[in-house]
């Protein structure tokens, strides 16, 4: 197990390195000179040259990359071009908002999705199963930004059940502000996870070992919840791990629609102003988040499935 974890960690670092390098090169391929965009058309050439040098943009790109990694290893992600604050400060200030949004979305959608899927699989081809299927498919088909706008309109503007914008202060207020955005980006996941769990459960329920468990008179509840669900959940854990990446991009919509602070909003804002250090910092943290979540999913899988521990 420890061996498996070590190897998985090494792989994560490699993925992180490749992703960040590619991102570094890509952002420099975006058209438009950052210095001109930042300073505006009336800046003097001296001022432009000064900023270019300050940003290290006069160096060849490989040297820029080396400097970036050199600073990164010392925990320095650079400074915000406009405010001069450390990028780490800004990013880590925004990070909790995005994290709480993503975790809330995963939590409610996985709980409901697994429950719905397991229930449907335990009663295949019944009316309940068909209704669950219809609901799941329509949830999957609903894009997060549409749901976000509709939820905002219905629950915040008309019914006024939940606040429309911001992230709130204090635990309960923050929770209150989380409801609508988490609902919006989690909804399609409910359907997706439910379909996945149902298919996976039906497959497992047909396997011989389930018949064995029944042949020993083990209670049907335990057969479904322990003997079958524990195996059926494995692909779902992987999907949720990878899904963190998709949720990160959905979070961008939610943060814009609900005017929430967060990584997504920070990235969008800093790309439009070509604020490279902020973009790179946010992207680095997002990528790390994604890499950590997939690695975590693999580790959970290995904990749940003894075969995965030896297979790698």
């Amino acid at each position, binding site marked *: 197990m420890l061996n498996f974890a070590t190897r998985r960690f090494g792989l994560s670092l490699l993925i992180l390195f490749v992703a960040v390098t590619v991102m570094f090169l890509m952002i420099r391929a975006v058209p438009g000179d950052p210095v001109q965009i930042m300073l505006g058309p009336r800046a003097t050439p001296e001022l432009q040259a000064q900023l270019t040098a300050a940003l290290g943009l006069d160096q060849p790109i490989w040297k820029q990359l080396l400097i970036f990694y050199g600073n990164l290893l010392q925990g320095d992600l650079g400074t915000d071009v406009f405010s001069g604050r450390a990028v780490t400060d800004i990013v880590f200030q925004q990070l909790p908002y995005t994290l709480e949004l993503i975790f809330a979305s995963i939590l409610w959608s996985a709980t409901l999705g697994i429950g719905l899927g397991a229930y449907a699989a335990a009663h295949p081809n019944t009316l309940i199963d068909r209704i669950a299927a219809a609901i799941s498919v329509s949830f999957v088909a609903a894009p997060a930004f549409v749901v976000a706008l509709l939820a905002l309109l219905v629950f915040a503007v008309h019914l006024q059940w939940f606040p429309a914008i911001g992230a709130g202060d204090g635990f309960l207020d923050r929770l209150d502000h989380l409801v609508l955005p988490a609902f919006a980006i989690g909804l399609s996941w409910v359907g997706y996870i439910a379909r996945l769990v149902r298919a996976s459960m039906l497959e497992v329920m047909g*396997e*011989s*070992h389930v*018949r*064995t*468990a*029944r*042949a*020993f*008179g*083990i*209670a049907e509840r*335990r057969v479904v919840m*322990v*003997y079958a669900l*524990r*195996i059926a959940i494995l692909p779902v854990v992987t999907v949720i791990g990878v899904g963190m990446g998709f949720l990160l991009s959905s979070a961008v919509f939610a943060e814009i629609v609900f005017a929430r602070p967060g990584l997504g909003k920070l990235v969008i804002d800093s790309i439009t102003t070509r604020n490279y250090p902020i973009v790179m910092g946010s992207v680095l943290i997002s990528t790390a988040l994604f890499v950590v979540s997939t690695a975590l999913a693999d580790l959970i899988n290995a904990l*749940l*499935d*003894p*075969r995965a521990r*030896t297979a790698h």
Partner: protein
Amino acid sequence: MTETLLEIDHLSVDYETGRGDLKALRDITFNVNKGEIVGIVGESGCGKSTLISSILRLTAPNTRFREGEIRFKGQDLLQASDRQMRDLRGADISIVFQDPMQTHNPVLTIGQQMLDIQHRSKQSKADKLAHAAKMLGAVGIPDPEARLKQYPHEFSGGMRQRIAIAMALMSEPDLLIADEPTTALDATLEVQIIERLQELQREFHCAILFISHHLGVIAELCDRVVVMYAGAVVESGEVREIFHDPKHPYTRRLIECDPGHIKERARVLPTIPGEVPDLANLPGGCIFRDRCDQAMARCATDVPPLDQLKEGHHAACWLNHEEVTT
């Protein structure tokens, strides 16, 4: 002395399918006495699996019990409640399934699974684990205490089948159903498992219903044998009787086809030509008629009854009737 444990009494079972009812079992009748080993032999698709899943009532949802009774200690299992059935399973009736590689839960330790099947016992967890270890030792798993902590994939196929046998015998059942327990294993392991089963049967005095298509194993292990063909019993009797004096052409052909029986080198292995009749659309008369080289006019019109020819020896064939002279 010979107390009847299990009575299959004129059992008929259908599967409802899109193309009509599949008559999987028709008019099956035989007994298993206490402490006796009865073999069921027949080709794939003859209804062996339907029969054992019917006994345990672990049948597919499209199964319909049309007629007959399955009596276990006098109680009709087809009328028993789900709760009563669940109380029987793994307690009075246990089963060892065919494929040892698939029979255990892959994500739970063997110890956990052996704990779970003792769910009726009031013993402490430590006592239950000790019992599990003792049973693993009894089927010849070395170092059983340590191996309880292992997962199924850490055992070989032969070991897994022995574990399955240990699990089935743990509650000291009155009836052990063994569904082709050696089919997925190679020949040397097969002998080991059979010998182990014999030893354990002497120790636990349970009756065994042993399903196989391997006649050699049946002859080795069983007291009596039931020969099934296309969902019906065609012959049943003492093992010695059946092997030395088969009274049904199908039994004779089965014995001829058994590789263990072939003494000379043959270029072509013997087979029984023809195919099993379509169970959804059964022809009238004898079901084996199309593949039988001794078929007569009467076989096409009348279904031969399962007649008692000698004490305990039954066969369903017109050739055994006195009015027929060949």
